[in-house]
């Protein structure tokens, strides 16, 4: 939709549902594809767990395809599930609706963004079917091993498909991201100034910015790695002897790749975390019927996090070795970023203080998120220090830490968000009882999975190991714990189908939601029709009179006042 020009109107079934330029349809397409590939990622993690808990039970799992599972699991979860789902899914759905605009700034580019993302997923999936299989280099893809024979997928097309898929994904992200930023900056409703935007919009906005500035480093790293593999350039490759022979490489810098990767990789953590923060901010205020505590502080904390996120990356590289002063610098910045993060957690907790908390499913997810994020964040403080990180890095302690903070926490926020906004998309409520069963199994289950991992990490069990049997330093009891973790993981994995079932059945048989089931103040619940139709607002764009958290305003008839209600009308 060009400003001042008429809204694009789709022609026919294909235009409306497949090659749609409507941001809501694009959001759904993103969500479905991301969930589908995410399910694959979960399946791979269960295969790994089977091997770790019951070594040798499946003869088809050998060391090679174990590494392939690890790699594809990590990459799929981080990039193709969470990044795509939060920004492509939630971003597309919520940004225009919450800002009171009719669509994204450039709907055609937005549509392309989805199809290019789809292409990247196809390329990724293709790598499962090529001769030597997908790459098994670990999701960090460190050279030299990622492109040398001996690593699964390195001599075939596996690693190339992975790198190519990433490059295509980055193009898709850029097309979507430019749209989100332009829309937030340039196409808000009358009265919607930046400090009246719902916090989730701030979060999506800043996460997109992080993506636009961080993905370039990954793109460059991927291009150079492709060159090293295909043209035998030596950007990342030092002189290497293999079986007594010198390979055709020499003089390059493997650590350079690590810098490029983590210059992307750390901001990537926040690309996932910020939208999760945003979802929690919306949900907690709405389901506790109380305004969010310290809105301005929340915004500035987000901006601080987004800024500092670019100067902490080398905390992932302590074990690669670095100048002690450099280690000191990165440890310091890492600890500093905890301050704005803590501000956010405090503000959420204070929002709950004396609030009228409703124990809805989204609220349960908020509470679970707060605890989980706190735990993951605390172990992060340990690992930020060089002296603590060096012995713990590459053990299961790290696996436990990053799953708490960047896997479980965002997924909890994601589920909370799905339960919260499902009525807006479908016009029906999800089943509450099934929701609670799914919540408790997932919440308790993830703790049973990841808490023991911290412990076996302390015992020294290394990460990314196919088998723990031949090592003297690993006590017998670790095997029992591993079995326990695997059983829990299987249960949690199976429980996700409750959610899927709930999604499908409730779309047809769920309770009618009405226009604003949660009594929320933000604009996406104030549309003419619900679920919102094409163009969102009928003939008249909404006008915004207040900030998005006017819950329990004294003197008002309801316990909430939507953003588009002027002062005269609140009583």
């Amino acid at each position, binding site marked *: 939709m060009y400003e001042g020009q008429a809204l694009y109107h789709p022609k026919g079934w294909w235009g409306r549902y497949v090659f749609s330029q409507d941001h809501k349809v694009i959001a759904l397409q993103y969500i479905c594809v991301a969930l589908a590939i995410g399910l694959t990622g979960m399946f791979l993690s269960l295969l790994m767990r089977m091997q770790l808990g019951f070594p040798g039970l499946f003869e088809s799992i050998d060391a090679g395809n174990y590494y392939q599972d690890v790699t594809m699991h990590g990459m799929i979860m981080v990039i193709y599930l969470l990044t795509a789902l939060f920004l492509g899914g939630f971003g597309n759905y919520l940004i225009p609706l919450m800002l009171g605009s009719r669509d994204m700034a450039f709907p055609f580019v937005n549509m392309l963004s989805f199809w290019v993302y789809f292409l990247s997923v196809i390329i990724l999936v293709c790598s499962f079917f090529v001769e030597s299989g997908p790459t098994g280099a670990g999701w960090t893809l460190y050279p030299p091993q990622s492109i040398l024979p001996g690593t699964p997928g390195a001599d075939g097309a596996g690693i190339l498909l992975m790198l190519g898929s990433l490059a295509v994904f980055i193009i898709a992200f850029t097309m979507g991201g430019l749209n989100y930023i332009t829309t937030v900056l340039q196409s808000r409703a009358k009265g919607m100034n930046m400090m009246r935007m719902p916090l989730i919009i701030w979060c999506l906005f800043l996460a997109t910015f992080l993506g636009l500035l961080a993905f370039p480093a990954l793109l460059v790293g991927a291009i150079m790695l492709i060159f090293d593999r295909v043209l035998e350039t030596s950007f990342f490759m030092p002189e290497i002897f293999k079986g007594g022979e010198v390979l055709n490489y020499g003089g390059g*810098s493997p650590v350079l790749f690590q*810098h490029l990767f983590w210059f992307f990789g750390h901001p990537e953590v926040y690309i996932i975390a910020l939208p999760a923060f945003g979802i929690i901010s919306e949900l907690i205020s709405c389901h506790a019927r109380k305004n969010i505590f310290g809105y301005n502080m929340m915004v500035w904390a987000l901006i601080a996090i987004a800024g500092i996120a670019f100067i902490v990356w080398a905390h992932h590289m302590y074990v690669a070795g670095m100048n002690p002063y450099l280690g000191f610098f990165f440890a310091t910045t890492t600890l500093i970023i905890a301050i704005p993060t803590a501000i956010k957690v405090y503000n959420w907790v204070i929002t709950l203080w004396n609030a009228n908390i409703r124990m809805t499913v989204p609220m349960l997810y908020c509470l679970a998120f707060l605890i989980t994020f706190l735990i993951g964040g605390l172990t992060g403080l340990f690992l930020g220090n060089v002296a603590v990180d060096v012995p713990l890095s590459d053990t299961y302690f790290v696996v436990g830490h990053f799953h708490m903070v960047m896997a479980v926490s965002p997924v909890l926020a994601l589920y909370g968000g799905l339960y919260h906004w499902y009525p807006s998309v479908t016009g029906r409520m999800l089943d509450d009882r099934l929701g609670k069963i799914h919540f408790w199994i997932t919440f308790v289950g993830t703790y049973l999975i990841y808490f023991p991992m911290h412990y076996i990490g302390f015992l020294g069990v290394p990460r990314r190991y196919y088998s723990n049997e031949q090592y003297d330093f690993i006590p017998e009891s670790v095997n029992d714990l591993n079995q326990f973790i695997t059983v829990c993981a299987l249960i949690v994995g199976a429980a996700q189908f409750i959610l899927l079932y709930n999604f499908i059945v409730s779309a047809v048989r769920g309770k009618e939601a009405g226009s604003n089931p949660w009594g929320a103040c933000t604009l996406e619940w104030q549309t003419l029709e619900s679920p919102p139709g094409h163009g969102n607002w009928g003939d008249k764009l909404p006008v915004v009179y207040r900030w998005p958290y006017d819950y329990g305003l004294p003197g008002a008839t309801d316990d909430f006042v939507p953003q588009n209600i002027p002062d005269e009308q609140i009583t």
Partner: protein
Amino acid sequence: MSSQPVSFEESVPDNLKGLVSDWSSDVQTFKVRWSKAMMWIFLVSDTFIFGSFLSAYMAVRLTTTEPWPNTSEVFALHVGGADIPLLLIAIMTFILISSSGTMAMAVTSGYKKQRVRTGVLILLTALGGVAFVGMQMFEWSKLIFEEGIRPWGNDFGADQFGGFFFMITGFHGLHVSIGVIYLTTIAVRVLQGRYDRLDDYQIVEVAGLYWHFVDLVWIFIFAFFYLW
């Protein structure tokens, strides 16, 4: 002299006030077209791509085990019995910078709604781009076929020289080539009178932003590869 106390509002310099009011306004933060805002954001992102390429180049150049080739020797042009360093590249740079000049003129005449003049100036700019890419192809073929420089190695020094050179100048050349296509499209639309009908030539400025950016990036590549 007045002895009135100055309020905080008044004490803020005007430009800062403008900034604050822009960012706290509703509807639009920047009073520009969406397409222009989007182009700016894209260019910031693209800056990070080139920035990563060039930082990687610098990092490797500082850490290679073999010495870096002597660039004034590698890039010299053999004219009339003498090796003249940097001759070709000076001409290329001159052409690209001049094309930025014609682009700027096109933007100005676009705002004056001079249809033919704008169209011709844009085409001239694109022509500059074509000349640049053509000379780059000449330089590449000279390096490849006469000097024997390959992405994976060369006779002058560190292996990474060829890799970085072809990768970064190639990526930039790709930007120029895309720019040529983009500018030609815009020029055709200008000449067809499409923007007269819309009464809006801002797209010319948006294309100009891209072109100036590509030009600016070249200055850095030029400095880092040919002068260092």
